[in-house]
């Protein structure tokens, strides 16, 4: 019962982990390359969600230091890390998509199994 209560209290971690597993499973098992890229984004987003929920502190303010005031500042580290993570995810996605465009020109398909079939016939 205690475990269940813990899970219900921390449901946001659970959601993030479930999303992570969905993303990883899709990324490794689906043969469509576009779906792999989408799954990669789901996986990254789940980690960002988790980090946001870890970094949230109730009643805290943005960490811009104002002199002479006692304010409870939030740690800027999770925010900075997630922003960077988003940028990195965008660039990896763009690169992966441009690779897919080029692979499509050679094979006329985005499906990895079909590509293997075409290659084995040659």
């Amino acid at each position: 019962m205690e475990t269940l209560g813990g899970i219900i209290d921390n449901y946001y971690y659970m959601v993030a982990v479930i999303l992570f597993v969905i993303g990883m499973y899709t990324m490794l098992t689906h043969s469509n390359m576009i779906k792999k890229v989408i799954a990669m984004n789901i996986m990254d987003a789940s980690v960002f969600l988790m980090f946001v929920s870890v970094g949230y502190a109730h009643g805290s303010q943005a960490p811009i230091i104002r002199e002479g005031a006692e304010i409870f500042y939030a740690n800027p580290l999770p925010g900075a890390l997630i922003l960077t993570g988003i940028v990195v995810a965008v660039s990896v996605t763009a690169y992966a998509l441009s690779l897919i465009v080029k692979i499509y020109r050679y094979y006329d398909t985005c499906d990895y199994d079909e590509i293997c079939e075409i290659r084995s016939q040659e």
Partner: protein
Amino acid sequence: MGVSEHFPALIVVIFFITAFISPLLYRWGRKFSAALVIVTIAAALGMTVSLLVTVQQAGTVFYHMGGWPPPWGIEFKADPLRLFMLLVVISVSLWIFIFALRDLQHELKKRVIGWYYTLYSILVGSMAGIVLTNDLFNLFVLMEICAISACAIISIKEDRECLEASFKYLILSAMGTGCFLLGVVMLYMATGYLNYSFLHLELAEAFNYYPRNIFTAAALFIVAFGTKAALFPLHVWLPDAHASAPSPSSAMLSGVVIKIYAFALFLMFYEVFPRTLLEAIPLNEIILWLAALGTLFGSIFAMLQSDLKKMLAFSSIGQIAYIFMGIGLNHESALVGGFYHIMVHAVTKAMLFMAAGVIIYSTGVRDIKKLAGIGRVLPITMIAFTIGSASMVGIPGTGGLISKWFLAISALEIGRPVFVIVILASSLLNAIYYMPIVINAFMQQEDFKKDIKPVPRVMLACLVIGMIFIVISGFYTTPVVTLLEQALALYF
């Protein structure tokens, strides 16, 4: 102090500055583009050496970006071990780049060569950053830069195999990064820090309260770095990627890039996680057995290949496992062996890929069976290949023996003779697939009947430098071993 104070940051930054100047320069002054990269790498090498001298006299140097002290700011750390890694990375990349100057003109379209220089300097810069950083946040960013630029120097060739291989590499390495980031979140949850030194202090206490978080983080880190460094069951991307890339890229990826991740895993185990964790769960044991399987299976897979570069790529899986074995044995002299192997294997594998590159450049042959009699037409190349193979097998007089010797001795010292047998068996397996190539190349009577393009002198000179280094590292081991023993003493 002056400017030398800033060397830890400058070593990384100058590569990025060069990377962004070189496309501008390539538009107007094409000739200077390559010279600029060479000057940059040489400057970084000089800074590393001077930093190493400083560190040996005055102890570890810390550098705070923007003047912000940790745990808020990004911290760079220069201790003897990191500088040893940096020295290997930068000098090997300088050597490979000089080789690449001539080889790329044959393998790439003229239009993209300028971009290759950009990617190359970004890759070297990010690796230098991974080695120097003392912060998980920074490590994550630099690892992604390294992964993307490593994929890009494969896909720049733009034929089908390269594109597919680099897509596979990209997806698996994105999976690795996802796992790494989740592990970072777990550690942040438990402690609230991302700086290695602070994490190390805080985790020792947090381990009592949140053991599950820290176990999960450790498992995720093994998956993440194992994928990126091609530890045995996670190696599936490596053969395609390293075999299809242009030869200088293969040399770089197989020689240096995968070792950086092995080094990062070492830092996680010895600088971030507390000793109590390593005693509580058999993490070292897991790595050790995976490595033992890797040395054997990498060699067995390599035997089955008919493509020269693919065989070399599979052989890398077997050889990187020695480095993991050094980490897994958790003993000082085993780590000396592991790090010595990082240096020797970086040079040896890079040289073997260069030799393969020269063979492809001058004859266009990639099939192992068709190489019979090639030793008569390309003598220097095949002598280099012979010495490289000897070092892979571990024949006395080459550097490969020294690292295996250290590993075997420490396995005996801690009472695990099984691993001595594993090392011996894998050396034998190495001999089974390397030696026939060498013997066929020199002993076959039939003449080599293909057209031969003359090989540029620069490429041959690079091979000769590699040969000399491998032989020297087999005899004159004292300076490096003393340096490593001093550096590793800080961790025990």
